[in-house]
């Protein structure tokens, strides 16, 4: 009963207004490549210092929720994930938009984000202390294997040859080692350049590898960016609801995966959406349609990445360990407001905590009307804007977005270089997703690997350190399955003479 009273506090007109503004601002910021959820939350933290603690947290949570969802717009309409967690949304979202179903893809992404977000918040409300214990059982070696699992998934899922996926992931991992080492402090692969000392900024690389190839190809042809057939409504709610109902198990499974992955600090939405995408494809009766614009692919990734919002707050609130970078900023805001994380947040400061959780719930519900409304205009703008305006506008966003991350022109030059390299590699069958994932997961993998290496050397049992733990073995087994399952399945199908079972992402022949 007390929880309900606290939750009702979130429904005051002021909090409602702040949640509305926060969600709308988050959606717009998340949709702009280069402006991440972390940046949105970090920039607006000082604004919230003068507010009541619960109002401040509700606004920050709303911005975060909106930004994670907003990343899907650019992923679907421009093939550029607005946030790293929307990488897998490009797989089916952009092909849907290309064939004239961009409005349906945006509608599905909205429905999935709301469903995923609600499941994540529900888990935060009911299972927080229990799930937080799971996060504690993950040591450095387990994190290393988790990062490798993410990379094997992307390599196996990416278009073309699996080996090309692995080579791309290796390239991304090597790019992540440029600069000062996370463990040991060595200066690596800078070739004497001061500019490279800080390493390659992940979001700049994301913008370069996804956005610049799109621009390069946009100017090369006179055809419209997206195919538009007949009347475009902008919102296809009834059709979207029908597809979401058909994929209800997919939605629930993806949201659960998103929540579980998010409780592991640092793992983030990119792994969550990839795992859920992989599972959706594996469980589908038509896996060959994934990657070609299957609506279930969009549902899976978007449900998973919005579930990470609630899931990521579990270790943040219970253990004081931020699950994702925006959680770290919100944790800072909590500390500024005078609250300490831990069990007392659910006892002594229960009013603040439960009001905040209710605020997240409210923000997720507000995603539905706001998301559909803003999505409708985003879609209509993309299809009606002439190419001569679309190209410079996207280019402008990429340059200013990259510059704003570290106020550095060098980052813009690196972004452009990576973009051209990405376009060339893409032309030769090396997709950007494994490279970007390698870059994102590189520091996590390296930290886990080097710490595991030190532990193994100190204990004189290197093999047991890396291959001894039950969690490590489970993740290794999952990685092996993710690589070999599609190959074995394809071989079996070929033996049965069923050509339709060929994986859509597989190379023409192997």
């Amino acid at each position, binding site marked *: 009963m007390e929880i309900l009273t606290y939750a009702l506090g979130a429904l005051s007109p002021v909090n409602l207004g702040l949640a509305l503004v926060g969600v709308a601002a988050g959606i717009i910021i998340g949709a702009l490549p280069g402006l991440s959820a972390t940046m949105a939350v970090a*920039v607006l933290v000082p604004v919230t210092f003068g507010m009541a603690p619960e109002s401040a947290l509700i606004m920050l949570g709303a911005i975060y929720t909106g930004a994670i969802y907003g990343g899907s717009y650019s992923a679907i309409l421009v093939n550029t994930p607005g946030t790293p967690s929307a990488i897998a949304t490009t797989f089916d979202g952009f092909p849907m938009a290309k064939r004239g179903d961009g409005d349906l893809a945006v509608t599905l992404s909205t429905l999935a984000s709301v469903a995923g977000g609600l499941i994540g918040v529900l888990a935060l409300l009911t299972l927080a202390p229990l799930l937080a214990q799971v996060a504690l059982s993950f040591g450095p070696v387990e994190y290393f294997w988790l990062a490798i699992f993410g990379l094997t998934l992307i390599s196996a899922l990416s*278009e*073309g*040859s699996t*080996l*090309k996926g*692995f*080579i791309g992931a*290796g*390239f991304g*991992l*090597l790019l992540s*080692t440029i600069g000062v*080492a996370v*463990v*040991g402090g*060595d200066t*690596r*692969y800078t070739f004497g350049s001061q500019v490279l000392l800080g390493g390659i900024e992940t979001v700049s690389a994301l913008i370069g590898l996804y956005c*610049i*190839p*799109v*621009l*390069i190809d946009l*100017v*090369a*042809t*006179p055809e419209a960016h997206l195919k538009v057939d007949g009347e475009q409504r902008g919102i296809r709610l009834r059709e979207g609801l029908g597809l979401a109902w058909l994929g209800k198990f997919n939605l629930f499974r993806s949201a659960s995966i998103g929540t579980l992955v998010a409780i592991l600090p640092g793992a983030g939405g990119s792994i969550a959406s990839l795992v859920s995408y992989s599972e959706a494809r594996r469980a589908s009766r038509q896996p060959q349609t994934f990657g070609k614009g299957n609506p279930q692919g969009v549902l899976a990734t978007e449900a998973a990445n919005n579930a990470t919002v609630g899931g990521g707050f579990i270790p943040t609130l219970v253990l004081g360990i931020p699950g994702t970078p925006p959680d770290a900023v919100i944790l800072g805001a909590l500390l500024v407001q005078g609250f300490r994380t831990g069990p007392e947040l659910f006892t002594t400061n229960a009013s603040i905590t439960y009001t905040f959780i209710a605020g997240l719930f409210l923000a997720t519900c507000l995603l539905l009307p706001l998301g559909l409304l803003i999505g409708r205009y985003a879609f209509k703008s993309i299809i009606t804007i*002439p*190419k*001569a*305006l*679309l*190209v*410079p*506008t996207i*280019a*402008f966003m990429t*340059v*200013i977005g990259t*510059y*704003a991350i570290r106020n550095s*022109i060098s980052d*813009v*030059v690196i972004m*452009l270089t990576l973009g051209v390299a990405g376009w060339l*590699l*893409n*032309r*030769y*069958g090396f997709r950007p997703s494994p490279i970007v994932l390698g870059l994102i997961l590189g520091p996590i*993998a*390296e930290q886990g690997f*080097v710490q595991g*290496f*030190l532990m193994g050397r100190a204990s004189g049992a290197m093999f047991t350190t890396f291959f001894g733990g039950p969690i490590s073995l489970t993740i290794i087994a999952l990685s092996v399955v993710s690589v070999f399952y599609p190959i074995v399945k394809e071989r079996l199908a070929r033996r049965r003479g069923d050509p339709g079972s060929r994986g859509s992402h597989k*190379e*023409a*022949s*192997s």
Partner: protein
Amino acid sequence: MSNAMPKARVSRGEIRAACSARAEYLLPLLFIALGSLCLWQARDMSQLGAVFPVTIAAVMILASVLRLLQLTLHRVIDNVERHQDSTPRRVLLVVAMTGWALIMPWAGFLLAGLASFFFLMLIAQHKPWTPRRLLGHLMTGVVLVACFYGLFALLLNVPLPMGRWFMG
């Protein structure tokens, strides 16, 4: 993407190249060279700093060698269906964006942004210009640049370059 996935069926024992068959062999060789360079550079690093890049470089070289083996064991055919679009426009776009990034510290964000917006507009336009269309696009460009400038410089407090030419 213009390099669309091949539509025609490929028989067993054949690999359709993403681009040309020769390039299919070239890229793994380039990655082997890159991996070797990383291994060579790692000689000067401490053991802790080198262990990860050395492992990754070795795995990347192994994957590239396996890819070459795979290509050797199959017949590689050119992808004749790939699109041949305007290369000059692509090159111009990259040159314009690089020039934009390099001139921004000198000319300032606003001037460099407006000039680049104009050039990119010309590069992306395939239809002939009419005075009305040109004026409309130019005005939209000015409004967009001003809006972005306002968002970043005023609302988000991002210190955008003012331009060394104008700072004395």
